[in-house]
């Protein structure tokens, strides 16, 4: 706003807006007080009206506070330098020094007093208490010198420089802290505000909160997908990188799921809303990341205990320092040493060490499609020495297809497939679905089956045209053709069809390996992490698949209920195990492992049994997640180490008189900033 009439214009326009009861814009404070009915108008709409008038709105007090800190630093620094000059060179009058010092002490540092007073009322204390005590002692002593009550020189320069440096430290810290949470802010900003919904045959722009499940939404190229949905018509490529970390745009056509917050790059599509509000994938991701960032790291337990005693302990040390110096030397060194103790102590560095690294680490992971549940799981991921991959749906695409049909002399390819599909149509096994799909694709006619029987995960049997057929794993039969071994060595799952006792042929089924599987395994090995495959397939097939992707070990013929036992076996060998699965069928195994890593299916990312959830299907996210966890925890440990060492070394140094209070203030001001800065360095690590 340039003048008072700007404020009047905004007030007038807002008052005329339906839903606004009153509006009062203050030019001097740049604040608006608006009473409005949320049912009729939203805050966003009001902001938009103000923007349309050519003004911008900013509800963020934080920026203003940061700016205030900077102004206070500049004033304090200029005054402090002037007084320093006056003390050593210019012989500045003590009274003038005191006037300048009073401005710094009671204006620039006023917030420290406010907080100290409020804290003392709660019988609590923080860093501000220490600063207030340290600088006030120096100020009062200097005032006494100024008024001639005590002989000597005033120490206004000390109190002013300390305040200037501490405010500078706080300003730098505020700016750096803002950067730590950039990732989550970016995710929140991804949430679209409106959607173009088709209602009564008309396209209308609705606020996102008004979109309902089943609404049809029109999406044009260059627009953000407003909510989670399913494509009804059209085809396009969608850039999902901002949510899943998947770098290449994903082709979408009818029936495919799209994720709210992602970007439609090429075609126009019509979609049906499947999830809205807090149920969308983006909302779930934001919630999970926020929860992870609020969690407590086990490594922090000691810090929690120290923090509770820190400030009172420093106060006691300062008193003891004063007494010791007074008895041995005299008042002045006693006062300066006690002030140095109060000023050098930095509880903030300890308090910031873990949360800042956790916020940067989990935020960074989320940007790459990796959701770490909490700090505890981050610590476990740091220690993982072995990764177990479930085969179907994890290492493979989870869509098995028939690859080979090898009939005996008595039947044709189609006869074999038709008979097998007729039996399997009654089964719910994923491999059965592949056989039925192959028969359907070839347009084969299925035959009626009587006496159908499921052979407990090994196969099926039934009667077709009065002949009893058995279809199942080769182990069901005493004498199988040589083709079985040949196909199994290729990593395929083989089923055999027999009429009574006579083998009619074999069908091989394979699931396509994910293209990133081999690279992911190789990256894990280069991190010195062992790998295993766990599958229901027989040992030959399991060995073939393991060798195709370079996995060290395999557990074959493991039924889902026994996967847990394989995990425990690895743990009994002293390994810290991560189990990678789809989170649905593998929940017990994921829970049994030291940490469960789940590949999210659809748009549901809240997987209870998983410590880490991968939003994308890129298996390289696994080594990346483990690496990121290691770097984050290493940063936490470095932060804690330096924060501890800083206090453990420098507090005694100040107590024995090795630190001038001004030097103490400089060290203190930069200790918190260095912790936050070290956490921010995580962003610079190259993870690929």
């Amino acid at each position: 706003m340039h003048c008072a009439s700007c404020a009047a214009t905004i007030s007038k326009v807002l008052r005329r807006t339906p839903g606004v009861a009153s509006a009062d814009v203050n030019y001097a404070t740049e604040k608006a007080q608006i009473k409005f009915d949320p049912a009729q108008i939203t805050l966003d709409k009001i902001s938009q009206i103000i923007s349309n008038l050519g003004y911008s709105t900013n509800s963020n007090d934080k920026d203003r506070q940061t700016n205030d800190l900077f102004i206070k630093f500049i004033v304090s620094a200029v005054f402090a330098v002037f007084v320093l000059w006056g003390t050593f060179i210019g012989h500045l009058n003590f009274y003038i020094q005191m006037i300048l010092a009073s401005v710094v002490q009671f204006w620039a540092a006023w917030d420290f007093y406010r907080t100290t007073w409020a804290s003392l009322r709660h019988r609590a204390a923080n860093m501000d208490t220490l600063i207030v005590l340290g600088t006030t002692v120096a100020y009062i002593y200097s005032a006494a010198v100024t008024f001639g009550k005590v002989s000597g020189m005033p120490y206004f320069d000390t109190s002013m420089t300390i305040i200037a440096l501490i405010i500078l430290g706080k300003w730098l810290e505020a700016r750096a802290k803002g950067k730590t949470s950039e990732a989550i802010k970016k995710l929140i900003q991804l949430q679209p505000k409106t959607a173009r919904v088709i209602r009564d045959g008309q396209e209308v722009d609705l606020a996102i909160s008004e979109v309902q499940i089943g609404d049809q939404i029109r999406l044009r190229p260059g627009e953000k997908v407003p909510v989670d949905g399913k494509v009804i018509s059209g085809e396009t490529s969608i850039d999902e990188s901002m949510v899943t970390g998947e770098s290449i745009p994903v082709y979408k056509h009818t029936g495919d799921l799209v994720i709210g917050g992602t970007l439609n790059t090429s075609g126009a599509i019509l979609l049906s809303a499947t999830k809205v509000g807090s149920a969308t994938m983006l909302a779930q991701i934001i919630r999970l990341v926020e929860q992870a960032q609020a969690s407590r790291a086990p490594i922090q337990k000691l810090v929690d205990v120290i923090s509770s005693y820190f400030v009172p302990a420093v106060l006691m040390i300062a008193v003891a320092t004063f007494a010791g110096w007074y008895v041995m030397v005299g008042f002045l060194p006693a006062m300066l040493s006690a002030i140095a103790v109060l000023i050098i102590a930095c509880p903030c560095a300890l308090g910031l060490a873990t949360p800042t690294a956790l916020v940067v680490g989990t935020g960074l992971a989320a940007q790459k499609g990796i959701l770490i549940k909490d700090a505890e799981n981050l610590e476990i991921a740091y220690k993982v020495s072995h990764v177990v991959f479930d085969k179907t749906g994890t290492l493979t695409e989870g869509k098995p297809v028939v690859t080979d049909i090898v009939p005996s002399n008595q039947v044709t390819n189609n006869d074999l497939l038709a008979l097998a599909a007729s039996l399997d149509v009654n089964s719910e096994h994923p491999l059965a679905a592949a056989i039925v799909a192959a028969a359907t694709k070839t347009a084969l006619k299925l035959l009626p089956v009587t006496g159908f029987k499921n052979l407990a995960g090994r196969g099926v049997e039934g009667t077709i045209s009065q002949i009893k057929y058995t279809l199942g794993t080769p182990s069901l039969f005493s004498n199988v053709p040589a083709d079985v071994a040949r196909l199994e060595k290729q990593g395929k799952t083989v089923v055999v069809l027999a009429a009574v006792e006579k083998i009619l042929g074999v069908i091989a089924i394979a699931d396509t390996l994910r293209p990133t599987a081999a690279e992911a395994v190789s990256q894990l090995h280069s991190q010195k992490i062992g790998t295993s495959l766990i599958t229901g397939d027989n040992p030959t097939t399991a060995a073939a698949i393991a060798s195709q992707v370079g996995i060290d070990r395999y557990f074959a013929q493991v039924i889902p209920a026994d996967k847990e036992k394989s995990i425990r076996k690895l743990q009994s060998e002293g390994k810290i195990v991560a189990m990678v699965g789809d989170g649905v069928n593998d929940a017990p195994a994921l829970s049994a492992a030291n940490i469960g890593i789940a590949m999210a299916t659809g748009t549901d990312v809240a997987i209870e049994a998983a410590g880490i959830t991968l939003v994308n299907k890129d298996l390289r996210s696994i080594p990346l997640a483990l690496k990121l966890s290691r770097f984050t925890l290493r940063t936490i440990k470095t932060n804690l180490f330096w924060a501890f060492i800083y206090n453990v070394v420098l507090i005694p140094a100040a107590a024995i008189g090795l630190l001038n209070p001004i030097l103490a203030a400089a060290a203190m001001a930069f200790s918190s900033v260095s912790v936050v800065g070290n956490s921010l360095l995580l962003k610079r690590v190259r993870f690929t």
Partner: protein
Amino acid sequence: MSIDKWIVLIGSTGLIGLIYWFFLGKKEKPSEISTDIKITVSGGYSPDSLTVPVGKPVKLTLTRTDPSDCLEEFVIPDLKIKKTLALNTPVTFTITITKPGRYGFHCGMNMYHGQIIAN
């Protein structure tokens, strides 16, 4: 040793005792069970001990009136809740605690503390 040194020694010892009593000798204040709690955040939390029923949603409203950035974040780690408290702006959210026990809360830098007692 001169008299002033004795005075400083005795006074300092007393002051250390006073600091210990003042900051570390606080007694827990029992609070009434409630499902709608308003907390003022200024130099700490008022009240700093909350008693809530198990299994029922409890509405918490925090208003920070203290400019100290220490108090800008409010964290209940065991419930995985972290809220940013803008100055002088009430922040309301609901928690439901399913297990009885004590749940600590603190500021972002872990210097101010409080607890929720779920009965």
